[in-house]
């Protein structure tokens, strides 16, 4: 294993060889930020339970992943969600053949950075790095330091985007390891509405790419964004994902997320309540099994008065896997009349599995309503008996309860096609657990 400093050197060499878009401001800032930071290690509170050492063993950092794939298999994977505007990335690169978003491109709503006109360039330079500070986030700095492409989603004021926008991030088997960097900037102007779906998926089971995704979102006054995220890559996959959101006054942000475990999954969600009466809802469910590792970090910066947030995450942790949930609510002194609630319920299904849950409340205002809670439990014996008393054997009863635990969150996804896609991915995820495989297969075929 190479040392963290050697590893960082390799990364910097990789950056030297890469070319960023010359009009972008962020790469120079990111390079400086990167030079001043060390690779995150476990001495940092935010990386206490996740060792990047797990991924240091593979040669991710020296090269960029190649966009190779089986086109037929890819088509099958992306066609399950109809009636969307779709952008498809293969190991970090846009694939125009599989993408279909010309309508929104013509309207200037979806633009690749490389196609940006002058006003779009100005917009990108204004916002990129304004919510996500590369000085604070090593992997964002690594990403932004080599920005040769990106996606701008810009919804003009008073506009309701009719169809959801689907971003598909596909990882596929490659001959050698490499890194895939993707970045997107989403700006929803005042009084507009958008549904954004992110489908992280894969083809093959020897994925050697480390996907490093950075996303910044601005939801302006009275605008609404509904954000559905499905992270369902094969377990050989590794991902570091940073999502940074700014909410203006009276804006509404709703997120539903599913995360399936893999070699490494790190999800950071930072939300800043910048204007009064903004609302954020975060619903999530994560599953880990085998030796998988999932690390969820949610940080809610309540910086304005009269904002509300509701966070509910469920964890399903089995075998020898490890999962982390860290949810922080930070109420700034000026954020009076905040109502913020955060809950994390977990099912721990094996003695070898490990779960670290840490809800945090930091309150500097005196007139707020806040609650946080976390629980770790096993399957409920009364419920098991109920199922058994109807003729179901113990294994089936357990499987049904497990499914129910997860499905309670899946059913909150406000899109039935997405629910079916998730059920199908869960059937794939549980292909080595007969009962769960059968239950999710049945659910995915449900009309």
């Amino acid at each position: 294993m190479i040392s963290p400093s050697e590893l960082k050197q390799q990364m910097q060499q990789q950056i030297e060889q890469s070319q960023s878009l010359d009009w972008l401001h962020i790469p120079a800032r990111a390079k400086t930020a990167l030079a001043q930071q060390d690779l995150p290690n476990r001495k940092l509170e935010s990386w206490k339970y996740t060792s990047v050492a797990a991924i240091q063993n593979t040669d991710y950092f020296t090269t960029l992943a190649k966009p190779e794939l089986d086109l037929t298999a890819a088509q099958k994977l992306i066609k399950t969600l109809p009636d969307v505007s779709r952008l498809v990335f293969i190991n970090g690169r846009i694939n125009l053949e599989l993408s279909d978003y010309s309508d929104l491109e013509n309207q200037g709503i979806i633009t690749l950075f490389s196609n940006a006109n002058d006003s779009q360039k100005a917009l990108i330079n204004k916002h990129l790095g304004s919510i996500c500070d590369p000085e604070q986030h090593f992997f964002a700095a690594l990403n932004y330091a080599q920005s040769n492409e990106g996606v701008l989603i810009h919804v003009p004021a008073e506009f309701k985007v009719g169809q959801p926008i689907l971003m598909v991030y596909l990882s596929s088997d490659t001959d050698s390891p490499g890194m895939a960097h993707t970045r997107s900037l989403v700006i929803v102007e005042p009084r507009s509405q958008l549904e954004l779906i992110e489908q992280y998926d894969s083809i093959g089971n020897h994925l050697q790419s480390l996907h490093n995704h950075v996303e910044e979102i601005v939801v302006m006054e009275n605008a609404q964004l509904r954000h559905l995220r499905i992270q369902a890559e094969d377990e050989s996959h590794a991902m570091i994902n940073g999502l940074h959101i700014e909410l203006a006054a009276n804006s509404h942000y709703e997120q539903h997320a599913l995360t399936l475990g893999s070699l490494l999954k790190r999800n950071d969600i930072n939300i800043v309540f910048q204007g009064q009466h903004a609302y954020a809802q975060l619903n999530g469910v994560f599953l880990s099994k085998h030796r998988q590792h999932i690390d969820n970090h949610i940080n809610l910066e309540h910086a304005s008065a009269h904002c509300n947030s509701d966070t509910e995450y469920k964890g399903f942790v089995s075998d020898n896997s490890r999962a982390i949930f860290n949810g922080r609510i930070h109420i700034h002194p000026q954020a009076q009349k905040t109502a913020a609630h955060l809950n994390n319920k977990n099912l721990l299904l094996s003695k070898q599995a490990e779960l670290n849950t840490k809800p945090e409340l930091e309150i500097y205002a005196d007139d707020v309503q806040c609650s946080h809670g976390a629980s770790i439990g096993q399957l409920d014996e009364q419920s098991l008996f109920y199922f058994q008393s109807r003729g179901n054997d113990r294994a089936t009863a357990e499987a049904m309860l497990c499914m129910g635990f997860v499905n309670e969150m899946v059913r909150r996804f406000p899109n039935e096609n997405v629910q079916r896609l998730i059920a199908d991915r869960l059937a794939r995820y549980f292909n080595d657990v007969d009962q769960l495989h059968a239950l999710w297969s049945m659910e995915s075929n449900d009309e």
Partner: protein
Amino acid sequence: MSNTSPLLEVKDLVAAVDGKTILNGLSLTVNPGEIHAIMGPNGSGKSTLSNVLAGRPDYEVLSGTVQYKGKDLLELKPEERAREGIFLAFQYPVEIPGVSNMHFLKASVDSIRKHQGLAELDTPSFMKLAREKCKDLKLKPEFLKRGVNEGFSGGEKKRNEILQMALLEPLLALLDETDSGLDIDALQIAAEGINALRNAQRAIILVTHYQRLLNYIVPDYVHVLAGGKIVKSGTRELALELEDKGYGWIQ
């Protein structure tokens, strides 16, 4: 009836929950086709009896025997009892959000049919059957799509128990205070559902605190449970007498 062998034979049953003896030498014989009502004051052991017969794990049998269809019932796991035809309608049905009622019902029916050597019903046939049974119980078809008992009213939960019973077609149904928490309309619907299942092979044990259910489902025998054993048995008139005088005069 006299020449058939009993469906259920409970002898001197002593059972405990959390180390506390609740049933204290209970004996009961039930023949095919019979309806037995078990009545008694709170804490007399009524629910314990039905739970012990269904195989609830936290109920411990200390002594006594239970023969069902001539075999030792106590040796069987809860799911084996169900597959052999025992059905417990729960006093407090469990809520399982995220598992659709339809999936739960189909899995249950499939497991029982499989045990009986019958083919699994295909999904369309099962849906059709389930919808018919729902209609009988005045339940909307959407009821099947909802999570098991999730957000159901008290009455819906009890009707869901009857729906399960109608689909699983048990030989011995144990109805644990199925009438509690039901208004008069819901009680009538539930009673009609139960009466529709009466036949010469099927026996039903009704556990109830009140006589009013017996206005709709007329039992062949009424037993009064007190202190963990049956202290008095009779016919329907006994139930009426209990309604009149309360339980005090028996103990």
